[in-house]
């Protein structure tokens, strides 16, 4: 039974391991990619923790009594506190005082705070003191709720020192410069993060599919020996290239739509569990892109897709067959996966400068960055991304069209051996 199995297994392993494309694409790349990803995430978590430790807070004291002073003094012992001169929280937002104080958290102490505290300590336990917390919501991310969580911890500690439930909090969000009363930023972030995960995954899969399709399309022509015939026909080489790219876009687009429908249903099963009346209507909060935003997102996705397809065509021009083409294309996958995994959980603005620059340099990051930017009404980020990716795409398209216009599309091969061997092999293949 299974006679010869060991022999075949050893042969298979030798063949696979000795193929440098497989070694690089399937073993070395993941070994490098995931540690990089882990390092970036670790750095981001550390940065967020350090930021939280150095947190500042803006307090608007509309009470002025002794209890409010005690409250502020206690906070000041663990956080840096700024006192606002305004009495209306919307004025604080409008005058950009939060940015001036380098904070995203505003605590409003209402006028009856001290009076209620006094009544509570006098034995009237039904009366509690209220503080209002306003948090700036910038985008979904794992660190979005850290600021308000720090205040939760502080109030919990304050209550434990004096009396349980003595001070209660009411949370609101500041979204695009407007205060949205009763919208808990932590809940909002939890809801938005489902979208924040969905978009990078969808984009990652769309780009991966498309690149595979485009690379296979060119490599299949080589493998099935149809490319030579095609290139001798009275048709413009650029038309061949564009036909291949367009075919891949259509198929990848259908795949993406199918994927998005399925994935939205999957994510919908989470958001539908949010109870009614929690005031988390993203449309009314302005946390869905406008029509213009969707248009920009569509363009951003299209140019990134075109760029990925052109890259796949260029790489597959160097492959001898479908397997080689797919191995070559897999070298690009880290540039799809790393931005997707990072931006799934972290807002790009929360990242260190070097990582931020690296992500902006990768063209495939831009649809993900644009998806968040247009949601928050930041159209310029999306526009600059489109301009950058378009230039990158034009360069790659030019290279692809040059490859198709010359004999390179037939003769180019990536070899991991010396030039002499490459020349000999090319000549042998052509004969």
């Amino acid at each position, binding site marked *: 039974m299974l006679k010869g199995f060991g022999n075949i297994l050893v042969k298979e392993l030798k063949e696979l391991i000795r193929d440098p494309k497989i070694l690089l694409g399937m073993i070395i790349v993941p070994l490098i990619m995931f540690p990089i990803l882990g390092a970036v995430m670790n750095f981001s978590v550390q940065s967020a923790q350090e930021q939280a430790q150095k947190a500042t807070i803006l307090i608007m004291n509309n009470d002025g009594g002794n209890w409010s002073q005690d409250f502020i003094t206690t906070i000041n012992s663990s956080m840096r506190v700024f006192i606002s001169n305004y009495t209306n929280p919307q004025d604080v937002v409008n005058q950009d005082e939060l940015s001036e104080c380098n904070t995203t958290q505003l605590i409003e102490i209402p006028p009856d705070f001290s009076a209620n505290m006094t009544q509570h300590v006098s034995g009237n336990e039904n009366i509690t003191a209220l503080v209002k917390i306003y948090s700036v919501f910038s985008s979904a991310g794992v660190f979005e709720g850290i600021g308000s969580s720090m205040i939760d911890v502080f109030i919990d500690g304050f209550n434990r020192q004096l009396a349980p439930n003595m001070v209660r909090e009411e949370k609101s969000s500041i979204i695009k410069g407007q205060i949205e009363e009763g919208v808990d930023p932590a809940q909002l972030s939890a809801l938005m993060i489902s979208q924040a995960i969905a978009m990078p995954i969808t984009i990652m899969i769309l780009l991966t599919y498309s690149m595979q399709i485009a690379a296979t399309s060119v490599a299949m022509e080589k493998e099935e020996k149809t490319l*030579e015939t095609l290139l001798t026909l009275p048709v413009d080489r650029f038309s061949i290239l564009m036909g291949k790219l367009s075919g891949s876009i259509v198929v990848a687009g259908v795949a993406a739509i199918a994927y998005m429908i399925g994935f939205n249903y999957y994510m919908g099963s989470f958001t539908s569990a949010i109870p009614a009346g929690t005031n988390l209507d993203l449309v009314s909060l302005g946390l869905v892109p406008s029509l213009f935003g969707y248009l920009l997102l569509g363009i951003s996705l299209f140019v990134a897709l075109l760029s990925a397809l052109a890259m796949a065509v260029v790489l597959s021009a160097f492959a001898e067959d479908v397997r080689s083409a797919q191995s070559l294309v897999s070298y690009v996958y880290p540039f799809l996966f790393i931005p997707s995994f990072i931006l799934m959980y972290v807002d790009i603005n929360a990242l260190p400068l070097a990582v931020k620059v690296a992500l902006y340099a990768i063209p495939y990051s831009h649809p993900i960055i644009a998806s968040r930017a247009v949601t928050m009404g930041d159209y310029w980020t999306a526009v600059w991304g489109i301009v950058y990716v378009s230039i990158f795409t034009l360069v790659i398209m030019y290279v692809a069209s040059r490859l198709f216009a010359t004999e390179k599309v037939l003769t180019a091969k990536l070899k991991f051996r010396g030039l002499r061997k490459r020349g000999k092999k090319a*000549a042998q293949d052509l004969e």
Partner: protein
Amino acid sequence: MDNAIRIADLTKDFGTIRALDSLNLSVESGEILGLIGPNGAGKTTALRIISALLLPTSGNVEVFGLNVVEKAAEVRKIISYLPEEAGAYRNLSGWEYLNFMAKFRTDSKDEIQRIVNDAAEISGLGERLKDKAKTYSKGMKRRLLVARALMTKPRLAILDEPGSGLDVLHAYHVREIIKKYVKDYGVTVLLSSHNMLEVEHLCGRVALLNKGKTVAEGKPHELKEKFDSANLEEVFAKVVGLA
């Protein structure tokens, strides 16, 4: 007669390998010229350069007076190239494949239909043309591809091993079709082959290539007389042995 192909001092290098070394050759309009030679002699490289697929390192190649480098697009309009190891699109039927190819030659639906009907006759595949190419045998695929190469009645057909993979009957059928297209439609044919019988029966003239050069050229009977041989196989062996 006019020259259909004129090759002057054609050299092609792949890295350090010289595939063609100052090759000189001409093919007259309306003739069938056979290129023969051992593996690695440069036959396929020469055919690919004439087909405007590869660029010469040096030298000059003209097809009906058109330079294949400068007027590549014009050359492609009047030639049809059948590569040695050509394949068909696996998931297209024979009909769809022929239709796809015909559409590059004309926009007229009637003309496309006529071209495809001609191809169907050449291939002799009948109802099997409705099946996907991936279900074809090697011989059926080759017949489809030969039909594709001839169906448009090109001014110049460049056929690399046209009979490769065909059984005796179908090889004979293909040879007859090639002769018919030359006689009836004035197609010029440049073909390469390792089958000396095919070359002897089909070609008016033969050029023998070795190490990228023409080492002998002439009508089959002239070559046999010159090298005192009973057939082209002997000529081949003597010339290559002498080269």
